[in-house]
């Protein structure tokens, strides 16, 4: 009896300690990762889960914890007690007019505003809700609900479909950060609606553009007036990197992710090469890596500045001091932080306008450093590092440091140029003394 209670007590203790340790263990596992891996997937119907299983499986194999829910499930919610339950959201529910539970358009935008990632896939049946969310992200889907992207030249050769709405697109963005180092050989099969980028939004990028011969119209009816979206102004897949580094992927085709197009072979019209597999899998896997911050995520740590020859960071500099500035920049490679190597990182010494602008030199191990002389101007300066490159998260560091003028005893004591004045003063004093002496005692 006693041993049993003792054993249960020990068990309980172990359990409690495990429970207590759990968050730390979890934290220890993901301590380096810039983002968590809990993703909520909202679907119109659960059949999508199996029809798009290849894509989901590629995410799961990379460690993502997918939570599938129906979009009108009354129990869905992104946060509880002010804490977000998910780190990413995939909206594969183009037809949904209203989300279930507490989720609505504002909640999704808040989710992005707090730095989380989002994938939106619309379709020919896209609802107003999905369109509005896309509009908030800087992307406008074609307003005609029946219009899809048609390309009579760049279509994918197919046995069954003859209306040229299945497009073989290969106009990728030229960025190895977003699409990976390996070139995507096969064209990507696309079937869905096109969208254009809002010109006032400079954060949104066209990742996959339609060919110049594409247009957006209803293929079943006769074209009475020129289509509103034509040529390479049509974007098939776009990404947004918000100012808080949240990443959003928007596309007008849900079938882009489907097993059918993943597996299908592709031959672009007019091209003789027939690829065994469409580029969809590679394209979407790579871009998902980017969206979920497995690539192109920079961090800057250990900002240090000090006087040349000293190690400690002072609270204030003096004008014309020589100082050293260094910062470490790393890039997340998916599994570890690797040194980021580049020769275009610059630092500003800034007070209302940059007084010093220096390119940092790197030691290839992540440390960037430079040294310069504080300008002969006092005030509250900032070390400003603004680094924005395509595909990379933006780095914006500023560190405030006051610069003071000379103290009263830091000026030069004897200035060579002033020796005539010193001489004049002292000779005057001596002369006055002699004169007084002579005047008083020479009678």
């Amino acid at each position: 009896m006693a041993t049993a209670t003792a054993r249960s007590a020990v068990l309980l203790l172990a359990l409690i300690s495990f429970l207590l340790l759990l968050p730390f263990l979890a934290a220890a596992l993901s301590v380096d990762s810039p983002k968590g891996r809990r993703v909520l997937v909202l679907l119109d119907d659960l059949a999508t889960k199996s029809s798009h299983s290849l894509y989901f499986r590629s995410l799961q194999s990379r460690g993502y914890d997918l939570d599938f829910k129906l979009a009108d499930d009354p129990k869905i919610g992104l946060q509880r007690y002010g804490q977000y339950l998910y780190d990413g959201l995939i909206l594969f529910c183009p037809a949904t007019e209203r989300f279930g539970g507490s989720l609505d358009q504002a909640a999704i935008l808040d989710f992005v505003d707090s730095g989380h990632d989002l994938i939106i896939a619309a379709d020919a049946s896209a609802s107003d809700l999905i369109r509005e969310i896309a509009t908030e992200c800087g992307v406008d889907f074609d307003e005609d609900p029946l219009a899809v992207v048609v390309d009579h030249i760049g279509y994918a050769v197919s046995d069954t479909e003859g209306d040229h709405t299945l497009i073989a697109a290969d106009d990728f963005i030229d960025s190895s950060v977003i699409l990976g180092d390996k070139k995507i050989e096969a064209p990507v099969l696309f079937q869905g609606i096109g969208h254009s980028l809002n010109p006032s939004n400079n954060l949104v990028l066209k990742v996959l553009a339609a060919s110049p011969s594409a247009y957006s119209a209803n293929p079943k009816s006769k074209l009475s007036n020129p289509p509103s979206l034509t040529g390479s102004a049509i974007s098939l897949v776009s990404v947004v990197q918000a100012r808080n580094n949240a990443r959003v992927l928007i596309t007008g085709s849900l079938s882009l992710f489907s097993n059918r197009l993943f597996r299908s072979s592709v031959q672009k019209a007019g091209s003789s090469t027939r690829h065994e597999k469409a580029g969809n899998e590679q394209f979407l896997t790579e871009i998902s890596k980017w969206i979920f911050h497995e690539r192109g995520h920079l961090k800057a740590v250990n900002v240090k500045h000090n006087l040349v020859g000293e190690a400690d960071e002072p609270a204030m500099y003096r004008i014309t001091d020589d100082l050293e500035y260094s910062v470490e920049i790393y890039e997340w490679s998916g599994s570890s932080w690797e040194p980021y190597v580049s020769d275009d990182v610059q630092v500003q010494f800034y007070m209302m306008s940059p007084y010093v602008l220096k390119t940092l030199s790197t030691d290839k191990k992540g440390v960037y450093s430079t040294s310069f002389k504080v300008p002969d101007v006092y005030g509250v300066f900032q070390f400003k590092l603004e680094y924005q490159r395509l595909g990379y998260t933006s780095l914006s560091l500023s560190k405030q440091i006051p610069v003071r003028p000379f103290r009263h005893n830091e000026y030069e004591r004897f200035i060579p140029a002033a020796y005539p004045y010193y001489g004049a003063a002292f000779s005057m004093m001596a002369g006055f003394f002699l004169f007084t002496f002579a005047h008083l005692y020479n009678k």
Partner: protein
Amino acid sequence: MVGKSEPINGTAKSQPPPSPLSPKSPDLLSGYFSFKSLKLKTKQQELLIRVSILCLVYILAFVTRLFSVLRYESMIHEFDPYFNYRTTLFLTEKGFYEFWNWFDSESWYPLGRIIGGTLYPGLMVTAALLYWGLRFLRFAVHIREVCVLTAPFFASNTTILAYFFGKEIWDTGAGLVAAALIAICPGYISRSVAGSYDNEGVAIFALLLTFYLFVKAVNTGSLSWGLASAFGYFYMVSAWGGYVFIINLVPLYVLVLLITGRYSMRLYVAYNCMYILGMLLAMQIRFVGFQHVQSGEHMAAMGVFFLMQVFYLLDWLKHLLSDTKLFQAFLRMTVTSAVGVGAVALGVGTASGYISPWTGRFYSLLDPTYAKDHIPIIASVSEHQPTAWSSFMFDFQILLFLFPAGLYFCFKRLSDATIFIVMYGLTSMYFAGVMVRLILVATPAVCLISAIAVSATIKNLTLLLRAKTKAPQSASGKGGSSGKAASKGSLDQSQPFQKNGAIALLFGAFYLLSKYVTHCTWVTSEAYSSPSIVLAARGAHGNRVIFDDYREAYFWLRQNTPPDAKVMSWWDYGYQITAMGNRTVIVDNNTWNNTHIATVGRAMSSYEDEAYEIMRSLDVDYVLVVFGGVTGYSSDDINKFLWMVRIGGGVFPVIKEPDYLVNGEYRVDKGAAPKMLNCLM
């Protein structure tokens, strides 16, 4: 040459002064010998009465300034005093050298401010010395209490000084009356109540001290008094920018003496000593520095200094040259060439930029309309407005009509000292008319001159009363001036009539003086003891309502914002935010950079999206605005808004005042101008 000739001439010339200066000393001596037993006792009694009156006045001057502490609490008032308090705190914590070299990064973000080089340290050093002195004597006081009570303490000292000054220019009676008048004069109390920890509190003491010592030096021709006045001047320079008044009034006075032919060796010694040493000392204050020899405001003193040397040279030559005709020719030549050289030097200096032109504040003193047209930032301060007649009445009451009477007495008994006080009174009255805050400078002069009037009148009247019985005695005791002799002569002719009249007049005088006392006390308690950071109002049922919103707001800032947050507000609140909220501000009450203030004014008066860009460039995190619409508090930001527009428009022509007005009037309701409704404010 100066050094050589001073001793000889100084002793030679200083022979005459003692006799006119201390007319009563022979009388006293004779009285002392003739009625030894009786007179000694009277003398002692007089001394006792004088000392006790002075003590009472000293205490009164202190006590009457404590209304604000009783009404509210022991705290610092208004805007500037908060900065002074903050710097004093820094001085006592970090020591003098840290204070001297203090670069404050919390104000004027992002420019910063060199505190040590841009303030008059006299007040802070004085308070810190008092504090350290009290700590040394084992009084565990807080620095805030010292700061709160510095102004009353110096006001009390000023009364003692007024007594000595009055004694110097007239007699002890006038001195006593002057001490009593200045102790409760509202014009002075307005800037020296407990908690009004501002430069002026100390500066008026320093001003009067310098003047007293200078007059003393002129009267005695003694180098040591001249030296003392130079040190008084140094203290004044260290305490307040108003020292410019001294450095212009004293040369003007010397010039008047020269013109009226009252030039003497005493004057020569006093002025040269005071000017040279005072200048060297003043240049030790970092904020003044080389301005003292380079800026236009100080040129008058230098010109008079050189003129004096020319005068002395001429005097010496006259002594050497026996031929008057030759001397006349020489005089004409020298004076012309001296003035010519001076004018050319001034012209060249100004043109080459070596002598800086007059500052805007100085211009606006000479021409009251100048600031309104050219420098809105000076015109925007309420205490820089021209004085209304009613505020003269409010601050001086009976002194206003005693002042001309005192001038009359001064002119009747002209001496070097009375000429000085007359000039001081007249110039400062003019400046008081130009700017409200300069009533403060005029107050000591008005009190002194009025004291002469009161003292002389009462003395004459009492003489009338006692004339019948003690005619011979009073003649020997008080017969100092021709004026009194004349009045005595006239009284003999119609005695009974005049006696009743004298009694009536005496009662009238006492009635007036007692009215003055009640007025002063009422003004002090009602008008001048409000700290303006805590507001009091009468509720609908007569109960007192205290609004402590300012301090609550600053405390909120202190508690709820990150320590490096930058707060943008109109400049009035800058000092208070840094002192109480401990946060960085963009502009504050030290209005040295007009462009920076105009930028804030522009941000406040632009459309919100433009304002956002401006504020991003200034790294603003919070904006503080004051709205008094709920409680009817009139000096809120809506009220000040037109000044923001004017100051902003002065630098950035994009901002135009008519955009914010409807048919030339300023409206804040729904009929306001569209730009007004849509701007950040």
